[in-house]
């Protein structure tokens, strides 16, 4: 009982302290890159440090004004990850002569601005529930965009997931992640009783009715569609996994997971048999060290593995390794680059930061009181977890490598934008979860209205 009497505290000062620590991680990483690669500490370095500080403080003060009770550890974790990513991209730019760094700075600023906008204008996450079916339509449109001639950017690295808007290229699938989570949360929070109650019981399993399987079949077809038409295995796993987790959380029926895994196995096996690009992926994963595959298909993974081995336990230090020899070192393979230069110790710190971020998302879901908010927070936090698993698992050759982005670390604007918006939504939900409630029926309560006399 005494635990229940704990007074909720905003804890924004804790956030500020952790934020300073996170900023020192990001800025020190950048400083080490400059130091080790013989760069002078010119204006660029100070400007970048100032931008990172300014952006984080902007979010911090927005939270002070608009979401006082939001979780204090989410923002510092994200800032630290983003800072490490920016430093690594800058470091790779120096050796490859690429210019991904300035682009990443631009997108970081845009993404943070978008997150601030969401926190500022979205006063209550439950408003999103009104857009359940609009979100579905938006998701479908976003997923189809890369296939529309004219705005499609065509086949990039074997996947049709990009669109071109003037000088910018964008991956609409990243945003579809958010709108799909909103749709699943809205749909499942109003329909879960139906799905829960109906159906036959066979042994310990309660099987759902055939008509309640509809949404699951649709989700499965959509993911298979993404795989077949866009050649994007990563997003396909992400969308279907998101749906499976949300329906499991909504109904707590293990039968959904089993049905989902069975559908996934069927889809995966069929794709392996039918599509050459899928079977190539799998073969180059199993036989990665076979000379036949090292020549091109598995070169990236194998080179990344050698890089991480070179880094060892403590890493070579920023700028001291040669992660630039791995193709796409600053996006898909950034985990291999970090593994090489920061070592196992550094990589595990990064993974711990991800784990903490996901755990805080689940915590917000546990604390919040409405079913929609719970499902949305679980779905969004789980999307981080699944992305990390798929990409880090791919880089370390636990599972076949697929082109998902490493949240906040990898170079890529659309993913940064989408992930910062997700963070804004989780912060908003955590604010609702931790805000103290005045449950006493006092007339001063704004939410209390007279019963309308009709």
């Amino acid at each position, binding site marked *: *009982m005494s*635990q*229940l*009497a*704990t*007074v*909720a*505290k905003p*804890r924004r000062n*804790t956030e500020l302290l*952790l934020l300073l*620590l*996170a900023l*020192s*991680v990001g800025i*020190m990483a950048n400083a*080490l890159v400059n*130091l*080790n690669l013989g760069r002078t500490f010119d204006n660029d370095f100070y400007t970048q440090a100032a931008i990172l500080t300014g952006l984080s403080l902007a979010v911090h003060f927005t939270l002070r004004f608009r979401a006082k009770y939001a*979780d*204090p*550890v989410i923002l*510092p974790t994200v800032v*630290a990850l983003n800072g490490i990513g920016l430093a690594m991209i800058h470091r790779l730019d120096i050796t490859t002569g690429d210019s991904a760094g300035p682009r990443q700075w631009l997108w970081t600023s845009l993404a943070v601005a978008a997150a601030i906008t969401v926190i500022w204008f979205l006063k209550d996450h*439950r408003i999103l529930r*009104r857009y359940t079916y609009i979100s579905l339509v938006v998701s479908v449109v976003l997923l189809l965009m890369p296939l529309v001639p004219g705005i499609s950017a065509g086949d990039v690295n074997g996947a049709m997931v990009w669109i071109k808007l003037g000088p910018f290229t964008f991956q609409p699938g990243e945003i579809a992640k958010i709108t799909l989570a909103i749709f699943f949360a809205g749909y499942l929070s*109003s*329909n879960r*009783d*139906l799905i829960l*109650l109906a159906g036959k019981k066979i042994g310990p399993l309660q099987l759902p009715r055939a008509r309640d399987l509809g949404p699951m079949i649709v989700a499965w077809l959509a993911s298979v569609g993404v795989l077949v038409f866009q050649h994007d295995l990563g997003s396909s796993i992400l969308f279907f996994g998101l749906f499976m987790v949300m329906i499991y959380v909504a109904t707590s029926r293990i039968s959904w997971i089993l049905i989902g895994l069975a559908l996934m196995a069927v889809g995966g096996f069929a794709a392996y048999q039918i599509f050459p690009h899928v079977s190539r992926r799998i073969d180059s994963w199993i036989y990665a060290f076979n000379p036949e595959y090292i020549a091109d298909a598995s070169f990236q993974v194998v080179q990344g593995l050698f890089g991480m081995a070179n880094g060892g336990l*403590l*890493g070579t*230090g920023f700028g*001291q390794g040669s992660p630039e020899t791995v193709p796409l070192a600053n996006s898909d393979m950034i985990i291999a680059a970090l593994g090489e230069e*920061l*070592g196992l*110790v*550094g990589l595990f*710190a*990064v993974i711990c*930061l991800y784990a*903490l971020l996901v*755990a*805080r998302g689940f*915590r917000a879901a546990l604390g919040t*009181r*409405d*079913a929609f908010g719970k499902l949305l927070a679980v779905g969004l936090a789980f999307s981080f977890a699944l992305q990390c698993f798929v990409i880090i698992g791919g880089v370390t050759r636990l599972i076949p490598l697929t082109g998902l982005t490493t949240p906040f670390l990898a170079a890529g604007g659309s993913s940064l934008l989408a992930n910062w918006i997700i963070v804004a939504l989780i912060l908003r939900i955590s604010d609702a*979860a*931790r805000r*103290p*409630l005045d*449950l006493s*029926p006092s007339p001063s309560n704004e939410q*209390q*209205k*007279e019963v*309308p006399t*009709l």
Partner: protein
Amino acid sequence: MNDLSLTVTILRFGFLILMWVMVFSVVAAMRRDLVIGRKAKVGAPTARQARKHPELIQDAPAAKAQARLLVVTEGPLAGTTLELSNTPILLGRAQEATLVLEDDYASGRHARLFPQGTRWFIEDLGSTNGTYLGGTQLTRALPVELGVPVRIGKTVIELRA
């Protein structure tokens, strides 16, 4: 080993240490945070608190008598009764609803009544006109005591023993 490379080595390990300091600071901040989120005790316990702390329910005097009937007291369906088992009840105009309300002011999926422990809770499902428990609009799941009117559109229901 010259001075610069020594500095670089120290900084290299310093950065790894800094990253772990960051991780452990976050964990420390979370540890203090674990109790918050259970709400300050003002008013009735939430469904979640009731599940976690069954002793809260026993404190409430009205919970002694179990609700066994749902009775519609006002509105087009006045007089209808429904026996309660231990499965959730969906209220609304939709055909799938457990109690199909022929009420123009109710939404398709209006509200949901569900048992938790020894009592029933009502939760609004994002309805247009809202659900009122004893004159207060619901903003989250709240326990329904026996005889307290629940208003959905023009329909009023209550639980009876």
